[in-house]
């Protein structure tokens, strides 16, 4: 073989380019951390001044230049609950079907593709759809039920996917073991498979609720009210919602000076909800992970 001579400065050059590249990646990552810190700090510092018991327990007053945001908080909770009722059962059942019952590979791929497509549809399109079908066609009008249905459909793909993935991670030996003891497929799923998958499914459900709590576009034309002095009386009433309230205060305010602090407070409450939901999901994940280990 011919003799090879390697350039001598190569080692130094390699080292230098690595140093530069790593420093660059580090710097940009740091930027992202700073951006998040900036957003959070900004809203926390400005919002914390307005938040007190009255702020979260009183309805808006004086043409939304004073008072609290109670109806918006309650409205958002109603919508979360409503969409959970719509999406949890169907989503979980759909996930179970995909992983446990569907045997035709092509069919499963097709359904998965449709689920991914649904997940990619912009929320405003859900808003249009919800308005066309629930508000107009089914004649629910602008109402909690129309908003919940719209938000429920929006969160379906996330729930289906997490359910499917949670089930997929359970080894087939569990299923075979149960079936070998004479359990039917349904008994196997109900008694063996689902209990094992529950922690991950719950994590997915909680995260989907986080998304629902912050969505605005789907409820713009299906549910959200600009201002309601009283709390909704039935599911056919409109309700206020935190994200929409923030949008209204930030863009179509009448008295900026008085409304901006309320906007900060509303944003902070929203962030706290999201933060809390993220932490809860993580805690559940960790709790069950440890439990499995100690067993």
């Amino acid at each position: 073989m011919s003799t090879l001579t390697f350039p001598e400065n190569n080692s130094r050059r390699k080292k230098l380019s690595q140093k530069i590249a790593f420093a660059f990646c580090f710097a940009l990552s740091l930027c992202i951390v700073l951006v998040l810190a900036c957003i959070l700090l900004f809203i926390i510092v400005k919002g914390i001044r307005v938040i007190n018991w009255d702020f979260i327990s009183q309805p808006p007053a004086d043409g939304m230049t004073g008072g609290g945001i109670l109806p918006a908080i309650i409205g958002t909770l109603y919508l979360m609950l409503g969409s959970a009722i719509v999406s949890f059962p169907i989503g979980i059942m759909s996930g179970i079907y995909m992983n446990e019952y569907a045997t035709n590979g092509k069919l499963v791929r097709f359904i998965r593709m449709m689920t991914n497509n649904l997940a990619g549809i912009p929320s405003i399109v859900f808003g249009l759809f919800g308005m066309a079908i629930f508000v107009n066609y089914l004649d629910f009008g602008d109402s909690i039920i129309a908003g919940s249905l719209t938000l429920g459909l929006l969160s379906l793909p996330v729930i289906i996917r997490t359910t499917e993935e949670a089930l997929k991670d359970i080894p087939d030996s569990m299923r075979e073991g149960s079936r070998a003891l004479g359990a039917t497929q349904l008994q196997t799923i109900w008694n063996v498979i689902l209990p094992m998958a529950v922690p991950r499914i719950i994590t997915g459900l909680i995260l989907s609720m986080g998304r629902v709590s912050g969505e605005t576009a789907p409820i713009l034309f299906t549910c959200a009210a600009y201002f309601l002095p009283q709390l909704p009386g039935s599911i056919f009433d409109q309700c206020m919602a935190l994200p929409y309230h923030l949008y209204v205060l930030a863009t179509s305010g009448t008295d900026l000076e008085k409304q901006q602090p309320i906007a900060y407070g509303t944003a902070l409450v929203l962030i706290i909800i999201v933060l809390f939901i993220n932490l809860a999901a993580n805690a559940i994940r960790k709790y069950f992970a440890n439990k499995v280990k100690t067993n």
Partner: protein
Amino acid sequence: MKKILEKFVKYLLTASGFITSFIILLIIFFLFSEGAGLFKNHIIDDGYVLALNKNNPVNTLSAKQVKGIFDEDITNWKEAGGKNEPIQVFRLNDLLSMYPEEELGSEYEHAGSKIKEAILQNEGIIAFVPKSLLTDTENIKTIPDQTIPVKDVLAGTEWFPTATPSPLFGILPLLSGTLWVSFFAILIALPFGLCVSIYMSEIASDKIRNILKPIIELLNGIPSVVYGFFGLIVIVPFLQELFNLPVGESGLAGSIVLAIMALPTIVTVAEDAMRNCPRSLREASLALGANKWQTIYKVVIPSSMSGITSGVVLGIGRAVGETMAVLMVTGNAAVMPTSILEPLRTIPATIAAELGEAPTGEAHYQSLFLLGVILFFITLFINLSVEYISSRKK
């Protein structure tokens, strides 16, 4: 009994398995049936008629010409293909200034004949009046009723959905606004997304990664209105100051906010792809004397290219469909964008801003559903390309 239950549950599960496909079909059906209705509308408002003097050689007018005439941008018939004759615009309330009230009758019962008289007397007139008042059209030329042409919508450069007598539904300004904002958003997000995912998957220690991961998740979880609010209060004034703009609400403000919002999607997918790059390939590269960085950009990145591309495409999807944040910071001027530093308007923002005021079932309402259809197909295309990219890898 047990068997029946098993069967029942099985059917129930099967039915819910198809729920997403069913919803997509429903979405297509409802969006389409409303959106397609737009093309059944006439270019002139329903119940009205455009009438000309019979000596006027002009026979047809496009919606754009009508708008030009009534906005007084077009003032002479030769600009609309007629002879050199100034245009005299006649609306119903001009009747009162042309004829004293007693001539019109106490119940305006003579309004119809007076309108006809005005049209017969003025060669340059164009009258926009209710059909019910102009029942006798002898010796009068009426512009033939024409439904809104598909071309005027898909290739139209003007979006004036509430103009009378003939609204314009050209979607190009909105479509290009959407594409501009998304394009710049990805341009900003791409270097960050790549570097952060490289850092997280290849460089950072487990400890740092465990800090970064929840941060990215949190960025993903913050509601879009909060981003919009932050953009409005911080980024918009900052840009205004920086570039000395008349208004800070601009395409760039939207792009920056969207870049932050698209970042988690890009990072999550790209990082996942890089971590899935087989260890054996990394070892092969290192064993040949490559250092870590050479291994990353010569082996890890090329071999996880399809995953990285999927992440970027999904990020574009997120940017294209984002509504609230964009609505709050882009200034929403429905004009053909010429600079990213000027206000512009995206498709989702248009729907969100206008649907509340558009009367159900009318042309404007339907045009917004048509925008929804277009948005639906853009995102469908994006999703299918992601599907294609990731299936090709296997």
